[in-house]
């Protein structure tokens, strides 16, 4: 069993094709393909990407897709959920972005996007765009350790795969010690030492936002994460990827 986990295609069909080609080249076949949000974006061919994701070619793993920041902006624009008129989008990218997103993602596509999950619990992992707190939660290696630890506790997972930051990283959180003492009206309980085994947050990079397409391979049997970056010009074709795996 091997998972490919990616995020941030943002309408970049060529980059997505490059990743799919790289996935096909893996010696250890990819059995599951997860896309943790941001299929669509501002610059690419959003409809083409959605079609490609919904209609995988024979032999390709069927993508399991959850929603991301850009999908939430579509829901807001089309009045599906959240605040109306995409204030987050306007604040970050200006009013022009509203027009672009409106024109490049059809209502029918938004309806399909609205059927997607918020995230996936699989084995002892949570795969999600931001975090369980919010789709816009951006976890990075610089996020305060206690916030990362809390994210894992909320996720109820040993590994949290996320994509919001667009960065590729593996961040092990190793709780040391914590003494907790609770006093109620009736008693003061004996202090308890809170213990926890190490857990991790994995940023899966981004496929189409910036730089070379990047994604993550995960072998659940070996509990091994490998970072993949697809080399070469995406516009011209697909070079071999360089594995950067470590345990």
């Amino acid at each position, binding site marked *: 069993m091997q998972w490919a986990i990616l995020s941030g295609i943002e309408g970049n069909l060529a980059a997505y094709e490059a990743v799919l080609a790289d996935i096909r080249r893996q010696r250890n076949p990819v059995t599951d393909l997860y896309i943790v949000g941001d299929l669509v974006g501002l610059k690419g061919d959003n409809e083409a990407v959605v079609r490609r994701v919904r209609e995988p070619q024979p032999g390709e793993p069927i993508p399991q897709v959850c929603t991301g920041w850009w999908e939430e902006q579509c829901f807001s624009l089309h009045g599906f959920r959240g605040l109306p008129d995409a204030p987050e989008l306007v604040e970050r990218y200006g009013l022009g972005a509203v027009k672009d997103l409106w024109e490049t993602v059809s209502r029918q596509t938004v309806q399909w996007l609205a059927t997607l999950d918020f995230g996936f619990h699989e084995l002892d992992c949570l795969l999600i765009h931001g975090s369980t707190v919010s789709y816009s939660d951006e976890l990075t*290696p610089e996020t305060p*350790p*206690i916030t990362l630890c809390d994210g894992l506790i909320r996720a109820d997972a040993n590994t949290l795969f996320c994509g919001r930051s667009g960065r590729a*990283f*593996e961040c092990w959180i190793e709780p040391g010690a914590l003494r*907790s*003492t609770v006093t109620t*009206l009736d008693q003061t309980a004996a202090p308890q030492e*809170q213990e926890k085994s190490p857990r991790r947050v994995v940023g899966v990079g981004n496929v189409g936002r910036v730089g070379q397409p990047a994604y993550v391979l995960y072998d659940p049997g070996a509990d091994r994460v490998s970072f993949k970056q697809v080399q070469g010009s995406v516009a011209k074709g697909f070079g071999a990827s360089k594995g950067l795996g470590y345990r």
Partner: protein
Amino acid sequence: MKLAVISCIHGNYEALDAVLCDIDNQKAEQIYCLGDLVGYGPYPNAVVEMIRSLDIPTCQGCWDEDIVEGLNACECSYPSQLAEKRGHLAHEWTNRVIHPEVREYLASLPMTLRQDNLCFVHGSPNSQHEYLLPTMDGFAALERVLAAEADVLFCGHTHVPYLRELENGTLSVRVQQPGQGETQRQFTAPLKRIVNAGSVGEPRHGRPNATYVLYDTDTTQVTLREVPYDYKKTCAAILEQGLPPIFAWRLERGMEFAERAEDAGHVCER
């Protein structure tokens, strides 16, 4: 300076009156209120008027928010379907009897209050709907206090008072990024405390007495207070007003099985 912190009055004027008398006897110099002035109980307007007349700094509770924003302001705020059904009945009644100026006052309440290294919230710094139960994971609890940028976080919402001390919190983080060497960070937290003020008007600690807390800013001593009052008067008023009799039943016993949060980490995603 001695502070008194009260929460979750829920329209129970008798209980509020008794607690204010006790606070007076304890010679507290400042009172903070953590919200939920209305809901469940028969005297929402009188409770709000009392709080306003004493100029007590108050943050907004989930019930106060629901009265302002409309029913189901937060669709996921109830821990069970039974609790939701009863809550809706109480909401409809309160919504009907509340005075316009009371609604306006509830709308004006802040989510958070601060005094030096103390932070006051209804549920948690994240949400009025999050239950900080004493059994919550210690690191998650620590995160809430740190998120509030405080040494002592006062909260309510669970209706059961407690003091939780979190000491010697340490974490290490090991980061690997493609093309870069491994880096490590250490994190240590000094003593942090969560103080749950319990509930003045709808206690759930197993007895009908009102609860609140005292905090001495000089000694940092926390005292959980339990105040007997004539709860039968409130129970009778609940029945007289046509509110669900279960509210009187549970007030008499100081417990509510249907409203125990099943998910301590529950956070409204609205």
